[in-house]
């Protein structure tokens, strides 16, 4: 007799048996098929919406390019004397090019994993038209989406995994041990040199494979195909992001499996197990994230938007008062079209245009502290969420998935920061030219700053994903530990 009967082949025997049992029953087929259907629908939905967004963005970029090209042609014609400039659409006039007439878009492209978790992509706009106006004006974050849909949420893969995967895990394994005990086969099993943990491991592995296969492999395959068929964006970071996403999904599923094992370890009936698990799901997936959001937004409340609106008005009013006289100057171009032509590299800028330029400049400066407060508050919220989010694995998994898909708050904050930087570059380019009344030449024209999106560093994405995985693994380990303790006293009889 060996003191430690080898468990390796016994584990394989258990796994083979579980597969045979699951194939013979109807339940696992239904669960597997259902899950496949949900994943397929969710993925299809995500791909469709992302494709739509990408098309819209491509159209914006194209429109910008076409406009700029047209303006350049116009400029050359004006300088050659073959065209007459109009007062408010004059490409030679830096004050016009700096404003809405010449403004260009800052665009946030979708990340390669975008279709997987649509996240905040419908709530936050992914384009801003940058002009010399204060950023409080053009960074008005409103995309037109029916608010009912914003309220309802997406049916994307993240939803299926965060909300529905746990239920499917329950359906397959709520009676992991309790069924064997209630049937009477547990005594037969444990009267052999089989460790209880070997039995559990065998059962868990098979079920995990059944569910994680569709959850991880199918989306990866579909995304890969979509990328090669040209439907989805590609990037060098895709491989890494996909790997981390697989790990995140695995860690999330592991948590729920750990919960199932822990509940089974207490030795209650199958019916009790099922009830406890459903209640846990309701608390952890439905209620906890809602309470968490509430807690975080109360602990780090946003400054008042109403106050911001008021402040903006006050600041604008003051600036307008300061440039009252300039605002009162008349336009000189009526009847004197020639005044709009550039002369010796200089161009006359109308008094009112100058006034508006100066007003916007002042408003932008004055409103900056208020806007910085909003950014600081958001950063604080994210910090709090990072620290306390582990209270709800559903929240951790959801935030982790949207971050990997590039549709989370963090990436959008980066986009906003880069837009602001672009705005600064825009102002730095145009303001001296407006002050000096320099007319545009084609060469100068080509130097107008363009927005170039700098993707998040891969290291940052990896670090955040790793943190999320860790936040899911720790409670799993605790639950497994609890299970191990209870299983020691597990009564078979």
């Amino acid at each position, binding site marked *: *007799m060996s*003191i430690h*009967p080898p468990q390796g*082949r016994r584990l394989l*025997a258990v796994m083979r048996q579980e597969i*045979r049992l699951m194939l013979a029953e109807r339940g696992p087929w239904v669960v597997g098929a259902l899950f496949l259907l949900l994943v397929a629908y969710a993925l299809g939905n995500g791909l469709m919406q992302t494709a739509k967004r990408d098309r819209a963005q491509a159209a914006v970029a194209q429109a910008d390019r076409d406009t700029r090209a047209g303006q350049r042609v116009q400029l050359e014609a004006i300088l050659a004397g073959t065209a007459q400039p109009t007062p408010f659409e004059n490409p030679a006039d830096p004050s016009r090019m700096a404003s809405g007439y010449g403004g260009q878009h800052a665009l946030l492209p979708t990340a390669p994993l975008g279709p997987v978790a649509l996240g905040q992509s419908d709530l936050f706009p992914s384009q801003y038209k940058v002009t010399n106006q204060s950023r409080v004006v053009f960074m008005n974050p409103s995309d037109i989406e029916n608010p009912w849909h914003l309220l309802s949420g997406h049916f994307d893969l993240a939803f299926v995994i965060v909300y529905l995967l746990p239920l499917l895990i329950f359906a397959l394994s709520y009676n992991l041990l309790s069924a064997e005990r209630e049937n*009477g086969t547990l005594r*037969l099993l444990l009267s052999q040199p089989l460790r209880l943990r070997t039995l559990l491991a065998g059962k868990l592995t098979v079920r995990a494979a059944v569910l994680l296969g569709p959850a991880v492999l199918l989306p990866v395959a579909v995304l890969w195909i979509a990328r090669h068929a040209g439907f989805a964006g590609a990037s060098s970071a895709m491989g890494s992001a996909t790997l981390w996403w697989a790990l995140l999904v695995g860690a999330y599923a592991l948590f729920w499996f750990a919960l199932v094992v822990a509940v089974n370890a207490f030795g209650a009936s199958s019916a009790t197990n099922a009830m406890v698990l459903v209640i846990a799901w309701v608390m952890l997936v439905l209620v906890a994230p809602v309470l968490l959001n509430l807690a975080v937004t109360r602990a780090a409340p946003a400054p008042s938007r109403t106050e911001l609106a008021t402040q903006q008005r006050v600041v604008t009013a003051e600036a307008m008062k300061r440039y009252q006289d300039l605002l009162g100057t008349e336009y000189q171009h009526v009847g004197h079209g020639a005044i709009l032509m550039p002369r010796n590299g200089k161009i006359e800028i109308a008094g009112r245009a100058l006034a508006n330029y100066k007003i916007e400049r002042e408003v932008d400066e004055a409103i900056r502290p208020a806007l910085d407060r909003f950014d600081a508050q958001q950063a604080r919220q994210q910090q709090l969420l990072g620290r306390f989010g582990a209270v709800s694995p559903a929240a951790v998994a959801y935030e982790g998935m949207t971050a990997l898909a590039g549709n989370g708050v963090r990436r959008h904050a980066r986009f906003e920061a880069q837009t602001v930087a672009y705005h600064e570059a825009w102002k730095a380019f145009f303001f001296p030219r407006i002050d000096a009344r320099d007319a545009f030449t084609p060469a100068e024209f080509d130097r107008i700053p363009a927005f170039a999106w700098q993707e998040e560093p891969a290291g940052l994405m990896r670090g955040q994903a790793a943190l999320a995985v860790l936040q899911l693994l720790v409670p799993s380990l605790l639950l497994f530990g609890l299970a191990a303790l209870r299983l020691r006293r597990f009564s078979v009889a």
Partner: protein
Amino acid sequence: MLRAIGLTKQYGTHTALDRLDLDIRGGDIYCLLGANGAGKTTTINLFLNFIAPTGGTVEINGVDVTRHPVATKQDVAYIPEQVTLYGTLSGLENLRFFAGLALGHELPRSRLLELMTEVGLDHAAADKRVSAYSKGMRQKVWIAVAIAKAAKALLLDEPTSGLDPHAAAEFSDLLRRAADTGVAVLTTTHDLFHAQQTATRVGIMKRGRLVESLDGEAQIANTDLQSLYLQHMRA
């Protein structure tokens, strides 16, 4: 082979087993008699580590069961009163699985069919779903597992309850054959006839204590087991 030394099991204030001493050697067929709740099944459960003792020790082949619960399972085969198998699978598939768990490696189909024949199940029945089996047939599959295991000890809990006389006799033959090969057998039963016919040693339990012991087939044959049993029960 099977030893209990001062074995005690208490559930709160209720004493299920009170300082039981047993020493069953290879070749013994020990029948434990007693009423419901006397502690027979508790004894079996303690040998199998299905429950933990409150006091005393229980050993299989000289190894403490509580210290090496999994290892000691190699030397003992357990046959419960009610054998439930995996109904959606066939008798052969159940045998293959459990024998594989018992031995740690798979047996070839030829050997499995051999075992089935040995317990009296024909090949046609072997491939049918267990949900169609009778209680006797399910027990036979389990006996096949026990035979495959070739363990040094056998633990049986009320093996003949619900079996017709022919099947019960078959069972007794099986036990005798096993004892002849040196296996230690511990069986609990209500069936005094079966005990008288088969046992080499008898113990009567009442309220967790061993109140009577008979050793040797001769002694058992010469005792009116029924009167003795009822005498203890009424006292």
